[in-house]
């Protein structure tokens, strides 16, 4: 427990000082505290998990109908549903439906992460201490990454736990024994991608609202354009195969597209209809085949590299005019 104020006059501090190499942890912890203290963080996290909540309700209701006998003489609806459900695809749908909310969360947590320091000159406070530019960027990045990862992975883990406990006898673990490991790969990668991009964008401006506008603009415009190409790729049956492949690849060329593509690759699936039920006769954009690993690596690596480069060049205590 903290002691009270012992002496109101200045006393010299002669105690131990921490290792300078660990200073980024202080910055990261502050970022985490800031994020978790925001009500919007928890609200958006809740909203982003709507697919899992809806699926759990759907399965519960179906199970209850099954327990009640179902349609007279017909097959058990729950058994039918479990026959159609691919669990890793549900995680993929969790990614797809949560993506937009995670973008909003990224803005809430990360838009001001460096922009605020640029505006208030507080970079001087960080860099005049035993904290290098790399420590600063690493700390700021972790301060966005950790809460974002928490918001992304928590609903998926809860869904995983629910499904594992409820349907282990129905072959939950047999379907994909490595699903938990895949979850622990998909969400950190997605959170890291968002974190790197927002740290880079935030370092470029002095106002969080500008960082928000730039990031949301890039996200939404690229997403819209990529989705259009995605629709083309599944709508135009007569298109030459090369054009078809190009449109499919281009449909992943956005922030959320790359995250979805990366998720498909890590989860090892091309996707299946939401709730295990194909709605209507129209094409389903979620059924576009997974992109090539090269596209995802180059896309995510390239954008993240650019963002890091921007942050590295912009973060400095002194404006040097050459």
């Amino acid at each position: 427990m903290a002691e009270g104020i012992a002496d109101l006059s200045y006393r010299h501090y002669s105690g131990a000082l921490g290792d300078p190499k660990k200073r980024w942890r202080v910055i990261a912890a502050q970022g985490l505290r800031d994020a978790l203290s925001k009500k919007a963080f928890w609200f958006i996290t809740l909203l982003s998990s709507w697919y899992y909540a809806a699926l759990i309700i759907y399965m519960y209701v179906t199970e209850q109908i099954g327990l009640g006998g179902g349609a007279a003489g017909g097959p058990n609806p729950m058994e039918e549903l479990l026959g159609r459900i691919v669990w890793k695809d549900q995680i993929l749908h969790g990614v797809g439906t949560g993506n937009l909310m995670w973008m909003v969360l990224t803005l809430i947590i990360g838009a001001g992460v460096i922009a605020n320091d640029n505006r208030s000159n507080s970079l001087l406070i960080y860099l005049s201490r035993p904290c290098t530019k790399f420590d600063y960027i690493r700390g700021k990045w972790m301060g966005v990454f950790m809460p974002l990862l928490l918001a992304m992975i928590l609903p998926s883990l809860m869904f995983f736990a629910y499904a594992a406990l409820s349907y282990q006898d129905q072959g939950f673990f047999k379907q994909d024994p490595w699903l938990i490991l895949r979850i622990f790969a998909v969400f950190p990668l997605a959170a890291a991608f968002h974190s790197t991009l927002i740290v880079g964008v935030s370092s470029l401006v002095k106002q969080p609202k500008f960082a928000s506008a730039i990031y949301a603009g890039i996200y939404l415009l690229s997403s819209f354009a990529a989705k259009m190409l995605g629709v083309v790729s599944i709508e135009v049956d007569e298109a030459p195969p090369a054009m078809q492949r190009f449109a499919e690849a281009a449909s992943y060329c956005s922030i959320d597209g790359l995250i979805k593509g990366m998720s498909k690759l890590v989860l090892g699936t091309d996707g299946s209809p939401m709730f295990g039920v194909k709605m209507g006769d129209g094409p389903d954009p979620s059924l576009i085949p997974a992109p090539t690993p090269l596209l995802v690596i180059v896309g995510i690596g390239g954008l993240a590299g650019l963002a890091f480069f921007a942050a590295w060049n912009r973060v400095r205590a002194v404006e040097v005019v050459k």
Partner: protein
Amino acid sequence: MSIASIHDLTVKYGSFEALKDFTVDVPEGAVGLLGPNGAGKTTLIKTILGFVTPAKGRGEVLGYDMSRDGANIRQIIGYMPEQDCHIPGMSAVQYVAYAGELSGLPPQQALRRAHEVLEYSGLGEARYRHVETYSTGMKQRIKFAQALVHGPKLLLLDEPTNGLDPRGREEMLNLVKEVASEKGISVLVCSHLLPDIERTCESVIVLMNGTLRASGKIRDLKSISGQPIDVELREDSDVFIAEAQKLGLQLISQTRHTFRLQGTGTVDESAKAAFLAAEASKSQIRHLVRAERSLEDAFLEAVTNG
């Protein structure tokens, strides 16, 4: 003993040389860094902090090599920047405690010392308020507190009285002086306000166009060769001057009732002669002091003669 020694330091911003072959020893205690705008004062501080990389030269601060041990130097230095640099959304206590943690204090110690240094800096109960709501004077105090929180051995204060009203300025100067003289912390005060430096510092370093123009004790810089004395009489007296000259004192200048006299011996001998002249001329001495230049004169001489 010097707290920092710098040799042949050259710092360039592009093709512009902000410091040119700069060599200086910074003594312990309170030292003023004087110079007109653009002289290189802030560049020197930023080089010590490792914000800019010198084109050439070397230096040691508190025994650490400036080029190799930047983190160790920053660990034992407290820096109060010239401009506002508050982290938005924090109260003063949170801000200073955070600054303490960044300097390596354990979290509990950082919080405890944040309260102590904020109280010491005169922020009292205002320390629970958000920094954005502070007046200019309070912002200067919190900058001072964050520089002090981890118990540095050297404080770098860049224009500490910037934007302060006369009372705030007085209080800030008292704080700086107290820290330097009673708390055993060496202070390097960067300012272009000569009275501030004179009030708080024992020594000065004068820069101009990135070069060293003068350095040493203020007392020495202000001293005039020949050891003259200033004698203030109750009223003008030609007889006093005549008597003084008979006793070997020369009149150098006169301002109203004050005469600057110079003898051939020590200050004590000149003073004794002045008293004898006053007795002989039946004049009343109101004030007698060893004559010295103002710091402004010394500063002007340093920057114009360099």
